């Protein structure tokens, strides 16, 4: 029982972090059709900016300023890069972001070095909040939950209550129509791209000291974010939210479920020995493939339902 509750909490925290990263990408992908390979790089930049800023002005100001810096970088990328390339098609945009990801990774290595940097949880938040069945729940995790929830709330408010938000919502599902109605879509694009990048940067500020901050972090976070976005579906932030939480819980619970396909077969009286064909495959316990389950789900859902979970448009 205690394992269930602890895993539930852990899964929620991880899922919310994924959501912070993935929501920006969903917005960008849905609106502009751009598979932004540099999104995880923005996550990395957010962490590094926060590290350097917090050395001079403390964590809380860094929390505010680092995402803004990332947003500015995103705006620059959109205005001077993507906008030029837009007419050449989606593949060109994708390759642009891919090239950018390589460049950003190398620049980070050149500026901050190859080793991880000591970006740490601020002392104010470094304590155990409460006990859950003997395991401590760290205050910083509660902080992460709070920030991601607040962010979700703010996005929702911005999208539903402001004029720009309504335009963005419309562009998520019917971009050409919005343009035909006379709205300044390029400016909206820049705003969305910058906001998406800023969100990724915020995720980096919060996640960077929770995990490690090193030049390989973009490379390791990248694929799972794409899985979440596509699984949740294009054009739907709610889908993205559900997908993130689902993936987070899935990966967390997979660790505690120590069963394999062979165990299942044993229930039907079939024994798997080392000479059975595919024995290696059948005796794999779930924890060993836990981190691969998102990809399996991705392939399955795209095969049967290319819209994703709650997508409003076909991918």
């Amino acid at each position, binding site marked *: 029982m205690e*394992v269930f509750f602890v895993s539930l909490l*852990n*899964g929620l*925290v991880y899922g919310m972090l994924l959501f912070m990263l993935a929501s920006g990408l969903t917005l960008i992908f849905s609106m502009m059709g751009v598979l932004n390979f540099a999104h995880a790089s923005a996550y990395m930049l957010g962490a590094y900016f926060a590290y350097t800023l917090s050395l001079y002005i403390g964590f809380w100001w860094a929390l505010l300023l680092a995402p803004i810096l990332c947003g500015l970088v995103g705006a620059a990328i959109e205005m001077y890069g993507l906008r030029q390339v837009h007419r050449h098609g989606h593949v060109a945009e994708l390759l642009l972001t891919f090239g950018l990801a390589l460049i950003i990774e190398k620049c980070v290595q050149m500026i901050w*070095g190859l*080793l991880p940097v000591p970006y740490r949880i601020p002392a104010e938040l470094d304590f155990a909040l409460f006990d859950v069945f003997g395991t401590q729940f760290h205050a910083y995790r509660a902080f992460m939950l709070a920030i991601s929830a607040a962010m979700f709330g703010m996005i929702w408010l911005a999208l539903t209550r402001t004029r720009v938000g309504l335009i963005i919502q419309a562009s998520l599902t019917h971009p050409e129509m919005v343009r035909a109605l006379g709205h300044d879509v390029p400016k909206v694009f820049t705003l969305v791209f910058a906001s998406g990048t800023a969100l990724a940067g915020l995720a980096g500020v919060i996640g960077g000291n929770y995990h*490690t901050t090193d030049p390989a972090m973009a490379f*390791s976070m990248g694929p799972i974010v794409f899985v979440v976005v596509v699984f949740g579906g294009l054009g739907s932030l709610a889908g993205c939210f559900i997908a993130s939480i689902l993936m987070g819980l899935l990966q967390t619970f997979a660790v505690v479920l120590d069963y394999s396909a062979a165990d299942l077969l044993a229930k039907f009286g079939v024994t798997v020995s080392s000479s059975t064909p595919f024995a290696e495959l059948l005796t794999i316990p779930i924890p*060993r493939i836990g981190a691969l389950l998102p990809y399996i789900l991705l392939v399955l859902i795209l095969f049967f339902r290319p819209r994703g979970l709650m997508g409003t448009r076909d991918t």
Partner: protein
Amino acid sequence: MRKIFRAAAAAVAVGTALFSMQASAQSQPTIKLVYTDPLSGPFAQVGDANLKQWQYVISYINATGGALGRKFELIPFDSKTQPAEALLALKAATDMNAPFLVHCSGSNIAAALIEAVNKHNARNPDNRILYINCGAVANELTNEQCSFWHFRFDLNVGQKIETMVRALPKDIKKVYVLNQDYLFGQSVQRDVKTYLTKLRPDVQIVGDELIPLGKIKDFSPYITKIKASGAQALISGNWGPDINLLLKAGFEAGADLRYYTLYTHLAGGPTAIGPAGDGKVLSVMPFTENLAPQLKNEQAERFTKTFRDANKFEFTSATFRTILEYLQAAIVKAGSTDATKIAFALEGLAQKDFLGYDTVMRKDDHQFISQYIVGTFAKGVKYDAEGTGLGWRPDSVVLAKELMQPTSCKMKRPAK
């Protein structure tokens, strides 16, 4: 169409000409060590840290005269963690008639290199090369896959685990074993069971886990499981983010665990552990800067201090100096830089290392056997690691004579 091919041919010619110019510019009679490791991409810190330590050690040995009146020279090649690139480095090395190919990382590349070196030496007896392995630790390389041309200068997995088990305190009765799901991690898993059964039958393994390599971001579910099992210590061969994130999760959850690791002392580890790990994390290592002051060996301390003043990370591979001293001695003993002669001179060589310990390059399997240290990450040491204020305190030293593990190697030797 023709133009394209012509242009391409020209480009290839120019590129290779540039390279061979660079290579031939070094045609003074230096003894070349071609070094290949990842120098770019996500694992660049491994290669880069090693490269700096090699450069320092080589200039030190050259200052003492080199070997047979010739200086050593290190030529780095980026392997980009791909065996194909390392094999390309091997080709470049044989083109240069270098006697040594040095490699200090992944066992997958090591396996490829051993095979390639064997085949090359068999097919080209006039242009042989030796493979000096300074970091690939899979047991197979000096057992089933052993080769006359391969010399391993780092202890293998079995020996490192035995060191760890020997240093396990008497009050630890329950351990949890967690490793990465590939050949190396599975090897650690097997060896831990073997040596615990042999040396510490009183210890119970309450959990045994394999995780996919480099994919887990959130280790808190594993910590939950570990706590639930009642384990007092965690033994893990994880490296990189897989150990950094595991430790962070453990500290954060307030788990009352001691962490026994193989690789947390490498560049990046101390930063990731931070002050929260005081006294909790132990690692087996060939060397720590705090050993020399403990032994009151001033000359060794000066040697490591000069490196330390120029670099931000610990001189964990100061044992590269021992490797070079062995190569130096073998060349002098063989009286030549011919690979076959050096190999015969090198196997069976026994010297004292610069700290005064007995070491040997065992003839049966070309496995180097030396003392190994278990260090605790703690405050109050003379040399801290990566500016964290904590450093590695050498708590136990297991001597070479206790690590003479049996080998299944049936070495095939060429004619002298």
